[in-house]
């Protein structure tokens, strides 16, 4: 059975039900019998939706080949930050647990092994602490800021 999904920029995607129901959100719509018409997804643009559906399709195809799947996932998540956040938000909104976790893991990896200054640079975070405030935070858990 095929379902029709509509992205925020009005592009229609036809997808196998088995693939689409990896999204718990879509799954509950199907179970409630609300998926007969086109399902609008105003929070996901076509570019992101295409990626998400590729993820879902591959997870159906490679379900039992753990090695192959891991290879795919590692390659899939090598995207630039902007795309990563779009994927993250889409996975959250569509409630696709494994994609959400993988994307979160990827963002977390960006935070690892970096000094706060380096993290701010990578993620474009503006430091709005005063030097005194910063010092206080450091002192509270000094061990966490040591190499």
């Amino acid at each position, binding site marked *: 059975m095929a379902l029709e999904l509509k992205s925020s920029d009005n592009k229609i995607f036809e997808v196998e039900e088995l693939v689409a129901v990896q999204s718990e959100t879509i799954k509950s719509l199907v179970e*409630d019998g609300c998926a007969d018409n086109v399902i*609008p997804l105003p929070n996901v643009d076509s570019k992101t939706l295409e990626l998400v559906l590729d993820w879902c399709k591959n997870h159906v195809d490679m379900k039992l080949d753990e090695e192959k799947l891991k290879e795919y996932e590692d390659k899939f998540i090598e995207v630039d930050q*902007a795309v990563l956040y779009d994927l993250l938000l889409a996975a959250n909104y569509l*409630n696709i647990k494994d994609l959400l976790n993988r994307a979160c893991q990827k*963002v977390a*990896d960006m935070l690892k092994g970096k000094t706060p200054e380096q993290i701010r640079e990578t993620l474009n*975070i503006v430091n709005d602490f005063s030097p005194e405030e910063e010092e206080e935070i450091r002192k509270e858990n000094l061990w*966490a800021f040591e190499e």
Partner: protein
Amino acid sequence: MTLSLSLSLLKKKKKKEKETVTPAFQPLASANPKPLTSLMAESSTQSNSKRQTLSPGKDAVVDRISSLPESLLCHILSFLPTKELIATSILSTRWKLLWTLVPKLDLDSDKINTLELSLHDDDVEDAREIMFAHVVSSVLAQQECGELQTFRLRWEIWSDGSHLDAWLGTAAARKVKELDLEILMYDSDVGNLKLPPSFFSCRTLVVLKLSGDIDIDIDIDTPSLSFNFPSLKILHLVEISLPMPSIMYSQEHSFLRLLSGCPVLEDLSFTTTDFSEGEYKLCVPTLKRLSFGETDFNYSDYELEINAPALEYFEFYGDLRAIKFYEKLDNVVQSDVYISRYVPEGFRRKWVFNLFAALNNVKFLSFSPRGTEWHNLGNIYPSSFQNLVELKFKVNGCSWNVLQDLLQKAPNLETLVITNGYDSVESNLYWKEPQYDPANLSSLTSFYYRGFKGLKDEVELVKYVLKEARVLKTATFQVSSGESKESVLEKLSMFPRCSTTCLLRVE
């Protein structure tokens, strides 16, 4: 709120009495008591009174991460070990208290350094211990989330592990779901760490991992110190990678008593390295995944009887022992069997036979028979593997006959993966083509050979497969470095191929 509106319209069409908020809008499964109203904003922007306006030059480059919904940000942060997590508190005011909302503790004593201490060398280790203990306690105290999902501790203990009792008490009170303890005792005089009384009160556990120098001590006379984990689904008792003994079973069969206290256990793994002589009966009707084996040779003669009819995944590694299954595993889907070698006198053909009898229904099998005596055993497969669809076989030069026999017993095999695992053992055994049977390899569509070296037996096997597999679609060869891909491909292309649609690939 356009989305919830459109979805609720869809739902109303069917006149169902449901909430208008779809699951996606609910906070991620964290027991954070704070109202996450920020989640109701479905777009990525979120008003934040403290957010600075960006300087004009930075227009193209935006801080998207800080404006993610709080629960999503906490979910990302939950993938960080606690030390890195707390370091994020300094990034900006938005991040200052986020870490306290992450319901996880993940600390490694090795990664937490001592401060400058002007103490004598003797006192340094004690000071380190005190310091680490202080860190753990202070993290627990600073956390604002009511419930604790995960308590993960890797602790190298110099002498005093008594703080664990208080920490586990706190974890139990906060309904901890996952407990992961890796303990290393430096001082062998002190002995292994005994699980404190508060451990037994962690009744909400779903996942339990213990490894290292820990004693599982059960006092059957004190009910409060007995294993009673009504929600435990995953139990992994593993060895750490240092050359230390694995989990010591301080009482006879206390391991089995542990299992009887876990009525919904689904996933169990343990090492048999320290099993002493005797009969061990494992009875876990809910078990779906089982993995065990030896990490170091065990000289004892033990027997393991397994009653786990719901098993779907079975893994064994090490020297095969008398492992008896009560009955054939009807639900087994995947099995990884790695038999490291065996002691010729002790090895019994019937052990392997029994193993494969139990695994007869398997769909995905990975088999690696090491050692040199396989050709003396004769047939080790009781019957045909009707459901076997994928076989991964690691051949070592002495086990060609094992592969040969298996290929004759797998009429529905679709994927065959051979890995060259030749050890340095000399062998005068070789691949022999099985007797002709039209069923052999009749369903094979994919063939992979990993570590192809072009050895005589490998070539013979490849020739056989290409010749017999009528519906073969792809044959992929992974060659070791030093081999020219083109020359290998050329050579392989010369072999007669039965399937007209077969694609040869060398990587």
